[in-house]
């Protein structure tokens, strides 16, 4: 595929598999072997299991606020799978599938949502930044990492994510503008899941699509069916190759849908009707990919059942390994604001410890 064939001004959507999993563009089936295809499917199941379990723990009062990913697995996993070993991932906050593909341990992810900062400290070599709550602000870090690569002469690429709501932010504009001006090797992915909490994409912007915002920056943009894992993989891979070869950033709009709530603290039935949700259930990215794998005799349903139960066990064990064992060490609250604690911090820490120890 050629990114140039999908000028966002033409409002074309790049799709390889239709919602039934049928091949629409035969030449665009990526050359992945069976093991890789099954890995992708397994990561989709893994992501969904982690979501399902987190939501049920949350309902049981065992988990705090959680932002579910269901419906967006292809957008996350397909894009992250196109990255190379040394590439950077700069997340927003709803990229579970991408984090897992890039090597963030589930334990960290649960630890983060469970309320401990150590969930954002990843193993050596995992180049994934912490979750960024301030919307769109992280895109500038991605641009900065890319600019630094150019200055240092390194060839890693940065992939960053933002939601449809984030495209309204000034930081979105500034990050894209800087990236193109400085030819930074960055791939910007908008997970357009149609809602910013309750605010519909339709009133977020009057742009016909979100990828065409790239045009004003002189940047390549493309709208991709975000529920099609092959389309997401191909488009991101092309954009990464383009960036790595010094041909600048790309803006990808992954057109998808959040089947669940924004987070566990909102009720989506208040702002969208069931018919709409049902329409999107038919386009479920996991079912679509599963159909493709079954049609092509790649997926064995016994393997699938076994894998599902193994994943469920692993997810439960991981959660139990942190549950009730993850209270913050008091020293950690003070210790990481500066390389060395200031005298003020030291005093406050020591006074608090003395209080706890029953001093005067």
């Amino acid at each position, binding site marked *: 595929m050629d990114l140039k064939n999908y000028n966002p001004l033409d409002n074309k959507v790049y799709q390889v598999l239709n919602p039934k999993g049928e091949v629409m563009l035969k030449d665009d089936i990526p050359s992945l072997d069976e093991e890789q295809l099954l890995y992708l499917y397994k990561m989709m199941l893994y992501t969904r299991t982690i979501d399902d379990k987190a939501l049920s723990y949350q309902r049981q009062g065992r988990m705090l606020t959680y932002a579910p990913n269901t419906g967006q697995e292809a957008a996350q996993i397909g894009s992250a799978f196109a990255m190379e070993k040394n590439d950077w991932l700069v997340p927003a906050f709803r990229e579970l599938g991408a984090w897992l593909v890039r090597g963030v341990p589930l334990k960290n992810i649960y630890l983060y949502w469970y309320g401990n900062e150590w969930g*954002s400290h990843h193993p050596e070599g995992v180049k994934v930044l912490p979750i960024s709550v301030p919307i769109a*602000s992280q895109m500038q870090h991605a641009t*900065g990492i890319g600019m630094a690569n150019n200055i240092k002469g390194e060839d890693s690429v940065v992939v960053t994510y933002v939601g449809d709501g984030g495209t309204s932010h000034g930081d979105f504009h500034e990050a894209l503008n800087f990236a193109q001006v400085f030819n930074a090797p960055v791939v910007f992915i908008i997970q357009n899941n149609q809602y910013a909490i309750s605010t519909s994409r339709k009133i977020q912007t009057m742009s016909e699509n979100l990828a065409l915002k790239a045009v004003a920056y002189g940047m390549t943009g493309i709208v991709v069916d975000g529920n099609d894992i092959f389309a997401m993989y191909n488009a991101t891979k092309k954009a990464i190759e383009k960036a790595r070869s010094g041909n600048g950033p790309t803006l990808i709009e992954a057109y998808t849908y959040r089947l669940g709530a924004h987070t566990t603290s909102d009720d989506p039935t208040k702002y969208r009707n069931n018919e709409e949700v049902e329409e999107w259930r038919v386009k479920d990215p996991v079912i679509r990919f599963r159909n493709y794998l079954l049609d092509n005799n790649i997926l064995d349903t016994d393997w699938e059942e076994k894998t599902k139960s193994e994943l469920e066990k692993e997810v439960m064990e991981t959660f139990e390994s942190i549950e009730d064992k993850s209270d913050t060490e008091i020293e950690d609250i003070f210790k990481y604001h500066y390389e060395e604690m200031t005298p003020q911090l030291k005093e406050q820490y020591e006074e608090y410890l003395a209080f706890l120890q029953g001093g005067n």
Partner: protein
Amino acid sequence: MSNTLNIIQAINQAMMNEMKTDNTIVVYGEDVGIEGGVFRATIDLQKTYGKERVFDTPLAESAIIGTAVGMAINGLKPIVEMQFSGFSYPGFNQIITHVARMRNRSRGQYTLPMVIRAPYGGGIRALEHHSESTEALYSQIPGLKVVIPSSPYDAKGLLIAAIRDPDPVLFWEPKRIYRAFKQEVPEEAYEIPIGKAKVMKKGTDVTIVSWGAMIPDVQKAMGLIENEEISIELIDLRTISPIDRETIVESVQKTGRILVVHEAPKTLGVGAEIISIVNEKAFLYLEAPPTRLTGFDTTFPLPRGEKHYIPSPERIAKSILDLVKY
């Protein structure tokens, strides 16, 4: 060879020195390249170190700071310029939500050795938003350091310390006295430690704590009342955050009186913090109520009114006399 510099030249030389020995340092912002900065702080840096390390950016403060976060994460040491501290507000979100927090958020995995430089303060007959003193806004944010020099010697040594600091430093420059006077400054690089105030003059009757462009005005005030035989101890705070409590407390324990002079508004300003420190640590030594002389709790006036806003040497002198006569 003599190396007599004003503050702006000292700042320029600090960057010149450091960029020579540390090739991870990059300098960028609005008009810092070809133009050398609107105050010439970055003059000749691009000529000396090239367009790759010293460059102009599109006009966007948030992205200047936000990209510096990314650069620091990726192993560079960015020094970015806000053209005026009153223009830093579009970057406020990046400073507070990321610059200050990345180390703690990642439990030490990502640290941000970066410097944000900005001219601050009034007195240069400028347009709106070119005159405010914003140090208190940033000093309340955990994870930041805020430094303000008051002389060429301090400007160079403190800026070098800021560049070498493993944590982000906001380096606020007293633009009113950028070219007010020259000093002999070592040509080579040297550091003045961040977090340490300087006792500029020893005394036993009154402690005056001030910083930045107010220091020369305090010195003028001291000249106005030199016949009164008041022994004044003058402390230049140098670092606004973290404040050097020890030097202030030690001084007040000796003098029993303190006057804080700053240009920023009074309410919830840095002076309030200093006086709280004195109350907590030197209460029983006090001979008179701790006092502040500051800018008003008003918007900084346009040029026709600014002479009323900044505490004048005459007002400072009167505050000192009032404090001694209490």
